[in-house]
């Protein structure tokens, strides 16, 4: 058996029982190309409600490309094209009548590097509700979002201060609060802790445990311990080289996190999680 260096006893949250699985995303034979080169090919999997789902794999395996399909961020890259299907609660995300702007309201995203707007803390959180014209008290929304992101107590006395004055970890939680303020249903996190120190990372991970009660979370990470700690389900991607040396990402294995880390069914997954590769 694989000699897993990850201590699964650290896990505080067991995945919800199998019977409660409710499919949020149904991905079918998804592929993404940038111009002529295929970045990702033939991915099929299901994402479940109130689960944390982690995408792991070596650099260039297409995991970031994949997560950006869920809120149609790849639309912003002119050369990118998507084939296959993603159903979001039964509705085709790439259907011809779907407005990407509407998609992004429901499916929020947190990026690898904290990217607060060069405005005040308050204005950062209020930006989403403002552009979406959400009704109700803006102050209440901002407070609620900051509380959900476990940042309220640290910033409540200086909401008018510039967001760039916060530490990196605080900035990332601010970005999470900014997402939550528009009341999304799904939270996409693209390596949300890779630019943070271990303490700030722990706080983000604790936050993910909290947030999955209300949200469905998908997280890309290159940190296997992190996947083991936070994720209920884990998908392992790898890079395959084509005949002409082009690199394409493919899904190798998708299963409950404990299974991926202790009894992977694919040799490549085992090599990766035991640190023999990548």
């Amino acid at each position, binding site marked *: 058996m694989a000699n897993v260096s990850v201590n699964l006893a650290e896990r505080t949250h067991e995945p919800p029982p199998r019977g409660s699985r409710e499919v949020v995303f149904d991905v079918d034979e998804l592929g993404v190309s940038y111009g002529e080169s295929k970045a990702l090919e033939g991915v099929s999997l299901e994402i479940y409600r109130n689960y944390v789902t982690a995408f792991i794999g070596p650099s260039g395996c297409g995991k970031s490309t994949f997560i950006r399909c869920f809120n149609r961020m790849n639309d912003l890259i002119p050369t990118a094209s998507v084939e296959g299907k993603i159903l979001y609660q039964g509705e085709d995300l790439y259907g011809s009548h779907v407005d990407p702007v509407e998609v*992004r*309201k429901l499916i929020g995203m947190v990026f690898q590097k904290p*990217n607060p*707007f*060069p405005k005040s803390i308050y204005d950062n959180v209020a930006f989403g509700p403002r552009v*979406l014209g959400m009704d109700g008290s803006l102050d209440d929304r901002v407070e609620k979002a900051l509380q959900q992101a476990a940042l309220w107590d640290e910033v409540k006395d200086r909401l008018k201060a510039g967001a*760039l004055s916060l530490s990196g970890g605080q900035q990332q939680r601010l970005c999470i609060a*900014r*997402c939550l303020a528009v009341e999304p249903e799904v939270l996409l996190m693209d390596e949300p802790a890779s630019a943070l120190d271990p303490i700030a990372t722990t706080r983000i991970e604790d936050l993910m445990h909290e947030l999955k009660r209300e949200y469905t979370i998908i997280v890309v990470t290159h940190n296997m311990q992190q996947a083991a700690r936070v994720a209920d389900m884990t998908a392992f991607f790898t890079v395959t080289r084509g005949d002409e040396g082009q690199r394409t990402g493919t899904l190798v294995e998708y299963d409950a996190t404990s299974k991926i880390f202790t009894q992977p069914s694919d040799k490549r997954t085992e090599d990766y999680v035991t640190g023999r590769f990548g």
Partner: protein
Amino acid sequence: MSTTGRLSDGRQRSLWAGRIFRGFLYLSLAIGFLTLGALLAQVFLQGYKWVDLVLFLEPPSTDPQIAGAEPAILATIYIGILLLAFTVPLGVGTAIYLEEYADRDRWYNRLLEVNIQNLAAVPSIVYGILGLAFLVRGLGLGRVLLAGAMILTLLVLPTVIIAAREAIRAVPDSIRQGAYALGATKWQVVWRQVLPGATPGIATGSILALSRGLGETAPLLLVGALTYVAFNPTVLGEFTALPVQIYQWVARPQEEFRVLAASAIIVLLGILLILNAFAIWLRNRYERRW
């Protein structure tokens, strides 16, 4: 202890190369500074006595003792205001299109880009000829201040576009993505994130372009800025401008008019220096560190 060990080999040679290069740098600096300094000092010593109320409040005259440059100073201010009103919306609009909307794979967008770069290098006299043919005669505007402001607009527009594009490009993509990810539309992303982020750069570029436009003489001469205007300018009336007035005074045979020209140069330089200082202040005050 030996001074020619392995660690000091070649030190003498590179030291000399460094010194020679440094000397060359100082020389380049000195040539530029001394020339400019000498010119400025000469102008200042010659003209400072006549920078007085007469210069600001009197029209030109054949008698240098009572001649002033009020119409020219006012016209330069009017032109400056019109210039900003025309170039900023046009220049920023073009820059937003090219940076945020244009598909660079399309040949016409690339053509547009190359053309704008080229236009920035076209001599100002050529713009003057265009103004004369197209604005003054073609559109029948006549030799009026508006035509002068319009032709200067065309002259500095490429500079403003290039500066605005730089400023827009300096807004990191992560800001745009962050806004898109919250469900903002393209218009909202540009209007609420990109433009506010680019404003300091745009303002600086616009002011520097303005000061370039105000110093121009040739295009204004061609669209008919008169050398002798005894009345205060209107937008749709005949006009002169400070550089034109200076040009005319310098050409006079009497020594007094050269002194007068020197004093008008001081006024023009003062305006330009204030504008440039304001631009530098804006840049330092609002410069963003992303």
